[in-house]
């Protein structure tokens, strides 16, 4: 029984407890235990006793806290000022405009660029925090239920003190300065981790990958997780040390080398038209077979493979790009990209696949080429790779695109509802990635002409502009 507020009630409550137990199974309770019921008979006594018990519980009993209670970990210190109170309703509308992670990354990235954080009551990062500014990682750890403990250096002694996000970040840093020490930590601790976390840490070997990593990577080829095995194969592929095996020979059997009659140009083509099962099999094999293995199985080398791979089949061309990104040398990848980017269907999404292997300047250059081709798909990701306020040249190119330009011409009437929907989508994409001055220029062209100033379509622009003074 919980404690009693006033000792005078203790005895009464104990007695009424017996009555309550009687009613639970059914039957008349002893009315003599009640102050109001005593002396009454029949139903009247039972009703009085019931009323007395009900009121006594509310006024006299106090809840007792369990002895084993754990304080919920406090939200970590937020390293940037929170978004101004007045902007929070607009932020909530802007962030809710799309469920896509890339949209949230663009909006949150812009805010961090301008020196503010979202209020945690309005938005918190996903558990992994990947793709969001580092300032949110402690909060992501908190969401994941991990205590964010900041350590100066990752060592065998401090390994357990790091959260998964912090550990991944620290390992990448350690690989940059001391690759052997980082690998030694992995050799010691990786096997004790869950597959997903182990995979994330093994992938950090990409930073500073060198021949000394080969023995450890080869040991991972027998890892209990298929994903870890694949990651190890890809890294070994980067090192170019894997020999052709059965999978590589099976994959190579789908292709043949052909020589053009007149030009005598050699190309690697599909042997026959494929059904869906065969396409799926090729896709699966390309995830595990490295480029050097496939090249050997086709009696060529990495350079020959990327020069001769046919671009006639869009799907095969894209699968090769993905395979190269996953496990080929920079030279092979860039050589192939030079051929691939000229293809009509190469859009921004493809650029973002290769982006982690390019410098920011290279991404900007490649993005401009693709934007000028009129391919604006996956635009929100652009900011994630080149910074959250894109250079003016890129903004100009985007704004000059016919579909974006048409946004400015849409008349605000019901007959153009489809165009208005497109315009809203375009503004949602543009709002978080434009520089403030560009956002002001776009708003001034639209406000009051195409859209009412209060129209939520302009929210992304208004929000960008309102984040003044922090940049």
């Amino acid at each position, binding site marked *: 029984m919980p404690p009693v507020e006033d000792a005078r009630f203790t005895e009464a409550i104990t007695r009424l407890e017996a009555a309550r137990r009687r009613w639970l199974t059914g039957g008349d309770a002893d009315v003599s235990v009640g102050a109001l019921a005593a002396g009454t008979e029949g139903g009247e006594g039972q009703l009085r006793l*019931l*009323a007395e*018990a009900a009121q006594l519980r509310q006024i006299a*009993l106090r809840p007792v*806290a369990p002895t084993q209670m754990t304080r919920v970990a406090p939200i970590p210190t937020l390293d940037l000022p*929170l978004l101004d109170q007045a902007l929070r309703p607009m932020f909530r509308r802007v962030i809710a405009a799309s469920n896509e992670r890339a949209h949230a990354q663009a909006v949150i990235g812009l805010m961090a660029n301008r020196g503010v954080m979202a209020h945690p009551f309005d938005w918190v990062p996903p558990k992994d925090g990947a793709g969001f500014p580092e300032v949110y990682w402690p909060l992501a750890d908190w969401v994941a239920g991990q205590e964010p403990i900041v350590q100066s250096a990752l060592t065998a002694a401090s390994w357990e003190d790091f959260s998964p996000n912090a550990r991944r970040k620290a390992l990448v840093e350690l690989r940059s300065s001391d690759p052997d020490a980082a690998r030694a930590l992995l050799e010691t601790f990786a096997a004790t981790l869950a597959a997903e976390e182990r995979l994330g840490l093994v992938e950090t070997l990409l930073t500073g990958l060198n021949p000394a990593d080969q023995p450890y990577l080869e040991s991972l080829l027998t890892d209990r997780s298929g994903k870890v095995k694949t990651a190890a194969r890809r890294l070994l592929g980067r090192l170019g040390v894997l020999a052709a095996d059965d999978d590589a020979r099976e994959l190579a059997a789908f292709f043949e080398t052909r020589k053009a009659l007149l030009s005598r140009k050699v190309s690697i083509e599909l042997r026959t038209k494929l059904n869906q099962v065969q396409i799926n099999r090729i896709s699966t094999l390309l995830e595990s077979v490295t480029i050097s293995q496939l090249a050997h199985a086709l009696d060529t080398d990495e350079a020959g493979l990327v020069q001769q791979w046919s671009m006639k089949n869009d799907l095969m061309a894209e699968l090769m790009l993905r395979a190269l990104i996953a496990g080929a040398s920079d030279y092979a990848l860039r050589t192939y990209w030079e051929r691939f980017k000229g293809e009509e269907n190469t859009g921004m999404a493809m650029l973002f696949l290769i982006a982690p292997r390019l410098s920011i300047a290279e991404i900007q250059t490649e993005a401009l080429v693709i934007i000028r081709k009129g391919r604006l798909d996956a635009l929100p990701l652009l900011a994630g790779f080149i910074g959250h306020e894109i250079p003016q040249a890129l903004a100009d190119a985007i704004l000059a695109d016919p579909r974006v330009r048409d946004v400015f011409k849409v008349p605000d009437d019901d007959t153009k509802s489809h165009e208005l929907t497109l315009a809203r989508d375009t503004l949602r994409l543009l709002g978080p990635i434009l520089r403030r001055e560009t956002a002001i220029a776009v708003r001034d062209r639209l406000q009051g002409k195409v859209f009412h100033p209060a129209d939520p379509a302009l*929210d992304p622009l208004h929000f960008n502009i309102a984040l003044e003074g922090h940049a």
Partner: protein
Amino acid sequence: MSRPSISTQAIEAAAPDQESLKAAGKLLSASKWPERLVSPDGAFIWGACQGSGANPYRVAVDLSDLGAKCSCPSRKFPCKHALALMIQWSGSQADFAEAPVADWITEWLGRRRKSDASAASTVGKSLAAAQAPEVEKPVDPKDEAKKEAARQKRAEATTQSVSAGLTELETWILDQLRTGLGETLADVTTRCRRIAARLVDAKAAALAARIDMIPARVLGLPQKDRSEALSAELGKLVILSRAWNGGNCAAEVRRDIIAAEPREALLVDETAPRHSGVWEIIATREETRRDGLIARSTWLLGLDPAGPRFALLQDFFPAATGRQGSAFALGEQFEGELVFYPARHPMRAHIADRRPVGVQAAWPEGVAHALSSYARQIAEQPWLQDLPVLLPAGQLAMAGEALWWQGHSGEALPLIADRVSAIVRGTNLLACVVLWNAFSADLLAANTDLGLYHAAG
């Protein structure tokens, strides 16, 4: 900047029928409009219109096409409130203060489709006729006497009917005790539904609605608390029944058994307590009742540094009319006077007048030994169920799956865990408001080290 005006013909054309125009004509008194605003570019007008409910209706009109939005449950479009707003704009634009477009209008704009004004017609609709004063019929004293006698007869019949219904309720409660509350719990929904239906027939509508909610209230608790909660609910029904039959039947008892007095009656009641000050909307809760009505409770916290005061605005609207927008945003503050229904501890209220607040007021400090104040209120109105309590500084803690509020001075309350967002659990609570019913606390709002938190309804 010149602002667009609205012609009489345009209003007549927009009105769905003459009755709507006539109804709008009765809503033109400034006292019914605590808020009339216009956007800086003159594109929108909006305001709050005090209807018969506790919450005012939120009304907006797009002046470019007379498209309208109102939070009232009317199926007519535009409704009488929107028409009244248009009529006032056409009559006197000076009555409208300039203000930035409200967030709820921006959200509406994102969803709305432009209306086709070309199809509208003025045939059969006249604003002048709608606003013409009605000829009052001379009062016939004989008719009035007859009406009064009929009213008294109806009141007596209602009293008798309710008394009979309460006798039946007590018999039903005794049956539950004798057959066992364990058995009642296994069939609580059907059993409560049955006795509630009898009470509706006996004209005890408010009491019937309360009994209808017992299954949800009891079954929402942990298994170990259910039988005790059920006996407490039944015990309180006995107390309420005795308060009615005790001969000293106060208005507050009639209100909880039959229905509350209408707003108009409350506003002219000189015994009704009035409190002025700054009020904050701390929570809204909606419950769909078995009678097809949605009960919306809007909880207000009076921000008086001398100590907390709570108020409850209660509204009902048919579930069939769909979700109605709330008149207030959570956390919104206003300055104004509230009129409370007379009671030993007044809680339910209507807004008599309100004005925008200049500077946001701060929360009062939490009350030490808050449950003692709760106990005092229950001692005086023992049939009450949930009451708001302002708790002092504390933190949230887990005990297995259960969530608790823990005060720095040692007090603790079990919380309804799924009503508390994960993020607020990691904050330090400077003060918080919970609805407490002696079994579990529903966290409504909190003043945290990260600012004010308001739980979603």
